């Protein structure tokens, strides 16, 4: 981590990557540390070109971090995020063309989405349903009457020359999202406001050719429905922003309205960053950052931009911060200017004449409200009340499938903490190794419950349990079935264990001598041997008790 910092020192004699040294007033430390992570936010840093540190540079960097810390104490960052969620409807927003990510270019097109003369849009009812679901999940006020507007501009990926969107009467406004920051970053509960949610259509894909004389357009994506979520400028640093984005992803996945994948483009975030001296009520100049492809780049880009702006302020060059759009460059880990725009965009919004008013009835909204699944925030609070640690809570609630698996397991009566441990431990490890989701494994929740009960009740030992688990995950089957088939029932009959102990002691006279001579650790060897002949079934506690007795008796 520190060496990345020093790498940058060589090019620009300033702290460009201060996140490691960035502290907040309340003392929570944020540092992009590697974590064992349950949260999708804390991805380990991409491999950076770590060079050997020059000791001299190291010294000067440390004095600079002190100045930097001092600087940041005087400023606060104001961050807002605009998120575009690509809906997983079967067809596009205004025509019946199907949408499949990765399909051959220009195969899913029709006169409507191509913007050909005379074609008229007809709204997909699922889009309204998904919009209402999201609005309710984000605690918004729904506009029972809203409309579509044309946002007009010319660009090669926009066939009609305008985008059908919602301008002044969006379908949902004034909401909020509650979340918990990951434990690695100090934890803590946050509530961030949502200004609005509106429906709109996506543009096609524009690819620029290498040699620069022409570009290529694929209109498969033109007309795909999007929901745009605009947050209140409530976030104050990269971690809060990244976790907000992660929570939006969780919510849309929980609702089943989008697969919320940043890498595939079904979840896109643009952030707006400004800083102002603490105590000032006016906002500073806002800078927009685009090209963020992961939660960790959201985090890093924002921290970089905050430090860039703070530095300019500290050098008396605050006025050189202009309202502009910058791109996050993953390779160099900094934001760079896009070509500056002249003047504000004039989209000439007016109501879309080809589409009627969007009318949503209260009964419809109520029925959707009643059909909403338990949302991430509710799950987290419920798990917390069950006595689980925040770390466990965040892991289990992160993926709706894992949460459902967990809920099903404890519904069968399994002990909560044990179920958590199995899921977060062996099961999660398997999923990670084989790169599968919890829905793909052959283990069923009731079998996990059965396994936990069998171990707890003493039918099988913990060690055997672990072995069965692997087989259940990979091949399926039932706990009872496997126990029977492989004859795994734990041996708890003292007489039987005694027989085995006697056998082992008599077959290993040399080790017995060593024990008597004082090498007490050899008891472990005997225990191991008994385990071996019992095929792992001897109850360890009982075994050691009996072994102890026998060894002491004979000495």
């Amino acid at each position, binding site marked *: 981590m520190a060496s990345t910092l020093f790498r940058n020192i060589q090019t620009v004699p300033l702290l460009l990557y201060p996140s490691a040294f960035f502290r907040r007033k309340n003392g929570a430390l944020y540092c992009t540390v590697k974590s064992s992570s349950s949260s999708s936010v804390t991805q380990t840093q991409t491999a950076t070109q770590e060079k050997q540190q020059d000791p001299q540079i190291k010294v000067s960097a440390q004095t600079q971090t002190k100045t930097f810390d001092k600087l940041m104490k005087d400023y606060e960052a104001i961050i807002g995020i605009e998120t575009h969620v690509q809906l997983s409807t079967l*067809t596009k927003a205004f025509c019946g063309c199907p949408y499949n990510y990765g399909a*051959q270019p220009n195969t899913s097109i029709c006169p409507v989405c191509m913007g050909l003369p005379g074609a008229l849009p007809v709204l*997909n009812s*699922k889009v309204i349903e998904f919009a209402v679901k999201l609005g309710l999940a984000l605690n918004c006020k729904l506009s029972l009457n*809203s409309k579509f507007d044309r946002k007009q501009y010319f660009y090669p990926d926009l066939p009609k020359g305008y985008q059908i969107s919602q301008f002044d009467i969006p379908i949902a406004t004034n909401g909020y999202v509650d979340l918990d920051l990951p434990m690695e970053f100090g934890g803590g509960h946050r509530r961030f406001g949502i200004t609005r949610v509106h429906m709109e259509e996506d543009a096609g894909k524009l690819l620029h050719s290498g040699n620069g004389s*022409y*570009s290529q357009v694929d209109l498969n994506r033109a007309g795909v429905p999007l929901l745009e979520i605009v947050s209140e400028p409530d976030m104050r640093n990269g971690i809060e922003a990244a976790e907000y984005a992660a929570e939006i992803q969780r919510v849309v996945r929980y609702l089943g309205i989008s697969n919320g994948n940043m890498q595939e483009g079904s979840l896109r975030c643009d952030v707006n960053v400004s800083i102002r001296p603490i105590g000032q009520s006016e906002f500073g100049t806002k800078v927009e950052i685009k090209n963020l492809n992961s939660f960790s780049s959201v985090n890093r880009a924002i921290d970089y931009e905050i430090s860039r702006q703070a530095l300019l302020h500290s050098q008396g060059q605050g006025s050189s911060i202009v309202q502009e759009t910058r791109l996050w460059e993953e390779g160099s880990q900094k934001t760079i200017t896009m*070509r500056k725009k002249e003047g504000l965009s004039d989209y000439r919004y007016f*109501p879309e004449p080809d589409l*009627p008013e969007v009318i949503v009835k209260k009964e419809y909204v109520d029925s959707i409200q009643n059909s909403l699944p338990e949302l991430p925030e509710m799950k987290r609070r419920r798990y917390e009340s069950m006595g689980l640690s925040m770390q466990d809570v965040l892991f289990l609630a992160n993926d709706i499938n894992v949460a459902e698996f967990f809920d099903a397991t404890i519904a069968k009566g399994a002990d909560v903490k044990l179920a958590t441990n199995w899921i977060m431990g062996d099961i999660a490890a398997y999923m990670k190794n084989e790169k599968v989701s919890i829905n793909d494994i052959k283990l069923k929740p009731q079998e996990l419950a059965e396994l936990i009960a069998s171990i707890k009740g003493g039918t099988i030992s913990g060690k055997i349990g672990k072995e069965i688990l692997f087989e259940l995950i990979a091949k399926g089957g039932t706990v009872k079935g496997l126990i029977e088939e492989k004859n795994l029932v734990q041996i708890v009959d003292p007489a039987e264990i005694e027989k085995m102990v006697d056998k082992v002691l008599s077959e290993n006279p040399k080790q017995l001598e060593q024990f008597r001579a004082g090498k007490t650790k050899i008891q472990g060897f005997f225990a191991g041997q008994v385990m071996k002949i019992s095929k792992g079934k001897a109850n360890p506690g009982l075994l050691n008790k009996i072994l102890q007795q026998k060894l002491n008796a004979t000495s």
Partner: protein
Amino acid sequence: MGSRAVLLLVGPSPPKQNILFLLNYKKVSSAPSIRRFTTKATADGSSLEPPDVARLAETARISLTPQQVEAFGPKIRQVIDWFGQIQAVDLDSVEPSIRAGTEGDDLRHDNPETFENREAIIASVPNYEDPYIKVPKVLNKE
């Protein structure tokens, strides 16, 4: 579809464009309140700003000669004033509507339908280099 307001002026009937199209709107980033029309109809004609024809042509990507810019200004003004007669109506006791028309929902189900004549669409693309539509390189929006 593409609003060719200037060209339509040449024809006999007034264009069906919404009057709002010709008023200047700046991009608003946060949720704006509903627009209210505050201009009042006056006896000697509209008190709206005169049209900036050069700018309108630029935003509509229509090239006009300086003579055309000169000539179209008053013509556009005339059309706006013609619509401006609406402002004489007393709206004090009328509930503002969100948009014109009250047809209500016209929705379709989320059922995929493949358009059967894709070849004709592709054939009419001026510059097609399979499988992409070839366009001049444009890096900046607007």
